[in-house]
């Protein structure tokens, strides 16, 4: 049956071959089959079911190279946002405990951290979320299958269980939301055999010890940040620049803070090989591209954070003619998340040009479900998406980087208001606030529409969220000035910002 459906031909519903796969409920087994049970896949399938569609969601986790696997929920729940934020919190609490002493708390003895306690608590929370998602699917009447899905044709999905058993499902529409997985630099000898990725770090039962983090993406910096924060000797090896794609001035502040905070940086260095010593430790050889010299050092763990690759290989996309972007391997999408093949849609991390964020995947998934059910025509708006990097000094932003604003409007077409501020809480704690900074990039002319807003400081995510709404409403600099600040907070500094970069004046502002 499946063999007859293979190929790029469009099978009309009147074709008798499809009669063989029909069941009592209609033309196909399901109205919608979603491949991928992550942030996007779950949101899409639940929304579709709520709108009366017959939906199945397929989720399957291929174990990592190190053998790590996890339950339902995708990257965010299991090996991304959730455990990351919790480990970041663990690190922040370490700093807070140190600050506490200045605030009068009598803490006797050295403060040390037990990885196993933290890991177990976080892993338990993640497991409770896996369960919660399972219950939600049950409640919303979404059929859940723990099978590895691949496409047979635009209406047929083949699923394979861990044991190798095969299932065939037919669907009116198919949605691909399989996300991505971390890259291994396979060209570096020893990288795969001895290194970890973000898929593994959150599931380690024992401390990773002295760690080398290779990469300078937000994944690399966030991981290095919390590893340093819980007391581990951590080095970040950066090939060229940090936080590519983000505002580079802000990226510099983030890494400067990390450097002052205790994370070591190996700038402009590229690893050459990883060898395991008889002691069990890992010896990394690298080249300093600045000097050309070779260096060696030993680590307990090597964490590769050198990019993520979309999960498209095993989907059978080429067979169906689903177009992928060659450089990235991601699926080329229309603004309605459609692929080059009718009835097949894709969204989330797997989509070319899409932000790799949970909230956008969730929203896009819900809107797609509504469109497929015929309830709406609204498309996902990918503009004005706020985000935050949860490094030891958090960085929140919405809109354009200063570089991008300059490129689009010219240096003379923009006005950048900025300020270095000191969070009140840092004063008593005698903490260095040199990298606590904010800037609002605006159009120079007229109402001075805000093009981008950037903030480094504690709770940057909480601070940025509210301003993102203003941004979405087309806020201008005058709107900002009209807004009364809440005192004493860090966020209020955004409502008071008045020194321009153009003026060349000292941007350090003092509290009251």
């Amino acid at each position: 049956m499946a063999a007859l459906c293979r190929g790029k031909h469009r099978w009309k519903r009147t074709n008798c071959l499809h009669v063989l796969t029909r069941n009592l409920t209609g033309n196909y087994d399901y109205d919608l089959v979603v491949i991928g049970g992550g942030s996007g896949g779950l949101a899409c399938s639940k929304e579709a079911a709520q709108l009366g569609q017959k939906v199945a969601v397929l989720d399957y986790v291929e174990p990592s190279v190190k053998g790590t696997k996890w339950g339902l929920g995708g990257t965010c729940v299991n090996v991304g946002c959730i455990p990351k934020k919790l480990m970041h919190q663990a690190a922040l609490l370490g700093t807070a405990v140190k600050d506490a002493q200045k605030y009068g708390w009598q803490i006797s003895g050295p403060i040390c951290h037990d990885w196993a306690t933290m890991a177990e608590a976080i892993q338990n929370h993640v497991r409770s979320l896996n369960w919660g998602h399972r219950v939600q699917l049950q409640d919303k009447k979404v059929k859940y299958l723990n099978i590895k899905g691949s496409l047979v044709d635009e209406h047929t999905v083949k699923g394979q269980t861990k044991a190798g058993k095969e299932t065939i499902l037919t669907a009116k529409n198919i949605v691909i939301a399989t996300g991505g997985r971390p890259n291994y630099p396979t060209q570096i000898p020893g990288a795969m055999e001895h290194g970890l990725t973000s898929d593994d770090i959150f599931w380690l039962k024992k401390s990773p010890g002295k760690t080398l983090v290779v990469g300078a993406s937000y994944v690399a910096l966030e991981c290095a940040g919390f590893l340093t924060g819980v007391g581990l000797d951590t080095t970040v090896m950066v090939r060229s620049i940090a936080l590519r794609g983000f505002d580079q001035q802000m990226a510099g502040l983030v890494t400067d803070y990390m450097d002052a905070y205790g994370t070591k940086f190996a700038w402009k260095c590229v690893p050459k090989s990883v060898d395991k010593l008889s002691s069990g430790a890992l010896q990394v050889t690298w080249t300093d591209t600045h000097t050309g010299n070779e260096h060696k050092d030993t680590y307990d763990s090597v964490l590769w954070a050198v990019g993520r690759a979309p999960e498209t290989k095993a989907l059978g996309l080429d067979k169906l003619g689903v177009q992928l972007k060659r450089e990235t391997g991601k699926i080329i999408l229309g603004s309605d998340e459609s692929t080059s093949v009718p009835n097949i849609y894709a969204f989330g991390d797997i989509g070319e040009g899409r932000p790799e964020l949970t909230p956008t995947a969730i929203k896009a998934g819900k809107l797609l479900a509504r469109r497929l059910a015929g309830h709406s025509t609204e498309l996902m708006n990918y503009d004005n998406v706020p985000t935050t990097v949860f490094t030891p000094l958090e960085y929140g932003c919405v809109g354009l980087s200063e570089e991008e604003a300059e490129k689009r409007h010219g240096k003379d077409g923009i006005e950048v208001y900025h300020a270095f501020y000191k969070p009140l809480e840092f004063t008593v704690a005698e903490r260095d606030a040199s990298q606590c900074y904010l800037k609002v990039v605006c159009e120079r002319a007229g109402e001075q529409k805000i093009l981008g807003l950037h903030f480094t400081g504690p709770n940057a995510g909480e601070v940025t969220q509210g301003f993102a709404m203003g941004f979405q409403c087309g806020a201008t600099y005058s709107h900002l000035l009209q807004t009364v600040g809440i005192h004493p907070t860090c966020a209020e500094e955004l409502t008071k910002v008045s020194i321009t970069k153009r003026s060349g004046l000292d941007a350090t502002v003092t509290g009251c």
Partner: protein
Amino acid sequence: MAHRLLVRRIWTLSAKDIRCLPASAAAASSFSTSILQFATTRASFLSPSHALPCSLPHTSLRGVSFNVQDHEDFTVRVINSELPVLVDFHAQWCGPCKILGPRLEKAVAKQKGRVAMAKVDIDDHTDLAIEYGVSAVPTVIAIRGGDVVDRFVGIKDDDELDSFVGKVIGQ
């Protein structure tokens, strides 16, 4: 021998008392949808000063309950069991489960083999848990002759558990 007869009489008396007691509050039989059990939300159920009943001899709880291995094991030892079975659906991330487990074992042990107890880790046996409509944990389901005869969700104290167990056996 006399001691054993005496002890048995006490147990029988207890069972009778339990049967006469008004139905314990909320043996929650409704399927609680989308309620996730977290340790913090159920903290109010914890009574750290709850005293153990000292009228009964201390029973070794070793071997009172068994862990369900798979679906087949469940069929053989629970569905096809001659005894009524209390199935304790629990999870390692669930704080209240760690409190209810031993308490339930104690209540079961008191019944000296008239009721069995199976433990199902919902992370290991997710499909089974979903099949039985478990959403929050701990959930205890009483199965007799392969049918669900009673269930409750959340922590119960020793008296409530004795009452529940007694009802399952007595009916």
